[in-house]
């Protein structure tokens, strides 16, 4: 058994939260998530991945993949060795993603592909250690995960896992935001927002009137979600060693129209914009509220919790798909006469 191992974790619940009701967000069907995994398996085989570890779920994704790989193998299609990580309790919450990623890393996965939205990538990043991550979008607000054809993502993940592409730039280190309130802490990959709401409730944040602060590890001008507020006012790139934050107030004279959720472009008032430097704890001046990480309310805080946000530069190592495939072109790695596997169909 070779050691080119890739893990694939798929969140069966991504793309189904309250934003389908309060905005016009789309549903990402289970069948398409399963189909994306199938397409990746073809790509993994093409570039010589030895073993693929797949998460299991009660949402029907792993069941669908299991059925289909049986059919494909019976048709003579070669696929890598596939192991379903079953045997762990499935709680149908974020812990399932954490448990799966941990097991994949412990079992030697060099790359873990995550199918989900920003929330899934955020949770997976907490467990991934030094393995590389490739986050593919199947969620609602997708800033961190890329919207990309799974076959191409599979080729890139495979080329990194096999060691065929080892160039500088094949993976890049993401930034993190660490939010603390009392003894509790959460990390975000894109943004931390503070809301005057009292409860986590239905989790998503979609009403700008409740916002008091937005902190961004990066803020791209073409982003969807809360980071779009600063994406227009003070853009920061993914690879820049800094972040940015803003204080938000509904009546502020400085306003921006921000696409804070699919189908929701809302005016947001901003009173103060400031760069963030890594390693410094930025205090949140609010007595009580909820901290949202990557668009989902997670941490409720009250007087005495003294919440802070810190920018860190030690986030997950992420596969840069265009860079990997550009390297593959330079090195001729997809030349079937030089080792790449020709699929049988």
């Amino acid at each position, binding site marked *: 058994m070779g050691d080119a191992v890739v893990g694939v974790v798929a969140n069966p619940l991504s793309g189904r939260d309250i934003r389908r009701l309060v905005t016009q967000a789309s549903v990402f069907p289970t069948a398409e998530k399963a189909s994306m995994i199938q397409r990746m398996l073809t790509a993994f085989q093409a570039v010589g991945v030895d073993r693929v570890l797949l998460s299991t779920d009660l949402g029907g994704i792993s069941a669908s993949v299991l059925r289909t790989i049986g059919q494909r193998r019976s048709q003579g299609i070669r696929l890598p060795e596939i192991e379903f990580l079953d045997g762990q309790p499935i709680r149908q919450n974020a812990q399932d993603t954490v448990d799966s990623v941990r097991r994949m890393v412990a079992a030697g996965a060099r790359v873990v592909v995550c199918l989900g939205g920003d929330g899934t990538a955020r949770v997976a990043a907490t467990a991934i250690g030094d393995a590389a991550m490739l986050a593919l979008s199947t969620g609602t607000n997708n800033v961190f995960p890329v919207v990309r054809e799974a076959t191409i993502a599979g080729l890139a993940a495979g080329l990194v896992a096999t060691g065929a592409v080892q160039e500088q730039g094949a993976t890049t280190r993401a930034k993190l935001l660490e939010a603390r309130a009392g003894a509790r802490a959460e990390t975000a990959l894109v943004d931390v927002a503070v809301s005057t709401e009292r*409860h986590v409730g239905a989790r998503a944040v979609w009403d700008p009137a409740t916002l008091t602060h937005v902190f961004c590890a990066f803020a791209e001008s073409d982003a969807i979600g809360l980071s779009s507020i600063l994406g227009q006012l003070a853009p920061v790139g993914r690879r820049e060693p800094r972040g940015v934050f803003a204080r938000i107030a509904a009546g502020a004279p400085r306003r921006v129209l921000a696409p804070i959720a699919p189908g929701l472009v809302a005016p947001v008032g901003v009173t103060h914009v400031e760069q963030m430097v890594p390693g410094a704890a930025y205090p949140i001046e609010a007595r009580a509220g909820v901290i949202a990480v990557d668009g989902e309310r997670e941490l409720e805080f009250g007087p005495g919790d003294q919440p802070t946000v810190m920018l860190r530069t030690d986030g997950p190592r992420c596969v840069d798909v265009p860079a990997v495939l550009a390297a593959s072109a330079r090195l001729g790695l997809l030349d079937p006469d030089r080792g790449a596997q020709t699929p049988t169909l």
Partner: protein
Amino acid sequence: MTDTLERKTPTREQLLDAYRTMRSIREFEERVHREFATGEIPGFVHLYAGEEASAAGVCLNLDERDTIASTHRGHGHCIAKGVNVGEMMAEIYGRRTGSCHGKGGSMHIADLSKGMLGANGIVGGGPPLICGTALAAKLKGTGGVSVAFFGDGGSNQGTTLESMNLACVWNLPAIFVAENNGYAESTASAWSVASDNIADRAAGFGMPGVIVDGFDFFATYEAASEAIARARQGGGPTLIEMKFTRYFGHFEGDQQTYRADEVEHARAELDCLERFAARVTETGELTRADLDAIDAEVGAEIDKAVDDAKAAPMPTEADLLTDVYVRY
């Protein structure tokens, strides 16, 4: 420019009401569980314990204009919509003082004066009923909304799917609440629901479909509040899928050989009452004393309901000929 709906944060009175509703349901069901074991209660009972946040989160957003249709697991919906617990208990005991004069039993508790169209022994029987009441509300312009609760088993019935279609075609103020507790009797929903997530089916009908943590009152309340406000404004139907676990078997007496440690886990980690109490006392919205007072009142109320039910008379032969037809 923005179509953000007005947000509703529960007031202190609403929080007290929510806790009282959830505690009443829990206490009612735990008591029926114990009393059923004595053999005094006729027929079958299907208990709602564990699912309280769904009924409470939805019904707290409803008023006297609104109607709900329930399931065989209907006690929680009845209590949340304001049906008298004394009359409910008497109905379950088959007494003349019951909501339906002792002739319906657990699976047929109804109180039209409260907008409670009835528990329903027919799986998938509720959704067609609310299409009727929602159409009436729309035609009369009352602003009323109708809610059908159904389970993961009910979600697979043709009646449910036909009702979703009709509600969307007629753009009715109808809310479909799929209470997915993981099992249709003993058949796992992971095995029997083809789209896996019931909420995913909404896209096929062109209505919003969302998944909510059914153990979290604040999540169920928020989703229901948005969906109901949307329906009242003419925005049409919504499908809300509540995911949770029922604490007891499908019916009382079910040996539950089909499931492992999920109830233990849910009671310890996810329980809606525990989470609610922890949250509202932490924020200072309510005090422990507020909650203790409700616990004591509810306990006494359920005790009285059981005592009164046991002491109440049975229906007589002559009662067989009453309440057969309804005059409109």
